[in-house]
């Protein structure tokens, strides 16, 4: 059998392979040279590629992400490491108005091939400003592709795809799934057998992570793994749960979502982002606006509530969309 990799290692393998062969790829971000980025995405790259291609930036996201967009416009393919999605506030204009819209506003004269890697999520007591998911905030922007692998196989394949895409791609990784040791022992379901050769995973397609017939549990990032745990639990009660990994937010696989939910007639969306105005509502709308009669029960969203994320473990654990909550909701729907 092939080796098992963590998501961090798998994504890094893809980036290394592409960077070795294509001079236009370079990495920039805070602490990328010495630390390889906070989540190890460019571990060892400083020594291998040198400071010209692995650029340690000052703390100035509007500045260096804007700079990356310009480098992309002039023929490079920058890969930016932005450790926490909570920080998009300090560079949002580049995402919202420059990187995503320039191709359109120039009617295709100017391309912005740029990969922005961002870490999401909480559950480890990092409080309100360092634990957010903000999936909807980035997926909402027209002109950007947003992908969100939740296992090592997808991490490598989607990284290859992102680096070969001539557009602005946001590549999200939930910190708890990356497999870096100081976030705790990697979750088993994030590890995958990963081929040594390069391969691509297409954007815009869900993954059916587990087959099932009674209910469809839909997750993204960390909540995929919570859905899998819930499914294991439900199996003990004789409930067969299908688990879907969205893994691509923009484009969103509405056809795939609909087909999966049609099969079971019941849907729960588990999304660690805030409840309101989010991906969870978008997924439900994708089914209901197509044909509400496929549902045998009202759809359910299990999300972080619309509150700033609290620090104390007792509070934080209580608000996350964890397996127990998902399983309870599923039992109520199936009864």
């Amino acid at each position, binding site marked *: *059998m092939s*080796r*098992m990799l*963590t998501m961090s290692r798998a994504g890094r393998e893809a980036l290394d392979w592409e960077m070795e062969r294509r001079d236009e790829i370079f990495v920039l971000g805070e602490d990328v040279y010495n630390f390889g980025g906070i989540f190890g995405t460019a*571990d060892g790259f400083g020594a291998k590629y040198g400071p010209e291609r692995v650029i340690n930036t000052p703390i100035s996201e509007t500045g260096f992400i804007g700079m990356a967009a310009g480098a992309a416009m002039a023929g490079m393919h920058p890969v930016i490491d932005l450790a926490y999605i909570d920080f998009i506030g300090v560079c949002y204009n580049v995402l919202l108005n420059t990187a995503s819209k320039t191709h359109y506003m120039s009617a295709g004269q100017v391309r912005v091939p740029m990969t922005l890697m961002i870490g999401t999520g909480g559950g480890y007591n990092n409080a309100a400003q360092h634990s957010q998911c903000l999936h909807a905030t980035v997926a909402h922007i027209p002109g950007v592709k947003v992908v969100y692998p939740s296992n090592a196989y997808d991490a490598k394949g989607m990284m290859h795809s992102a680096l070969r895409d001539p557009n602005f791609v946001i590549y999200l990784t939930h910190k708890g799934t990356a*497999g870096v*040791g*100081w976030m705790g022992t*990697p979750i088993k379901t994030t590890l995958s057998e990963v081929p040594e050769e390069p391969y691509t995973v297409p954007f815009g397609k869900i993954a059916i992570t587990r087959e099932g017939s009674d209910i469809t549990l839909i997750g993204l990032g960390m909540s995929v793994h919570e859905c899998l745990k819930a499914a294991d639990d439900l199996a003990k009660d004789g409930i067969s749960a299908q688990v879907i990994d969205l893994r691509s937010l923009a484009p969103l696989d509405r056809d795939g979502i609909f087909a999966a939910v049609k099969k079971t007639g019941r849907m729960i969306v588990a999304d660690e982002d805030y409840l309101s105005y989010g991906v969870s509502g978008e997924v439900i709308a994708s089914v209901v606006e197509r044909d509400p009669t496929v549902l045998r029960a009202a759809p359910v969203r299990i999300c972080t509530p619309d509150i700033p994320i609290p620090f104390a473990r007792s509070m934080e654990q209580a608000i996350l969309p964890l397996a127990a909550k998902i399983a309870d909701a599923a039992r109520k729907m199936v009864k």
Partner: protein
Amino acid sequence: MTEVRVPLDLWAEDDKTGSIVVWLYPDGAIVKEGALIAEILVEKTTLELYAPASGTLKINVEPEVVIDKGQLVATII
């Protein structure tokens, strides 16, 4: 049979201990000499453990258990 021990020079400080973050192959898997088989965490740094020989991996120590330099963590048969 080859012992897989945490190399004595894997990290510098003698007073620090580590733990296995993850085994990249399951117990009983065939591994090749030189392959990366585990990640070891010492404080915030992730270090790498390579297979000293080819053969079948037999894991002795699970993740999240404190380990020391020189400790036996697996064998390769």
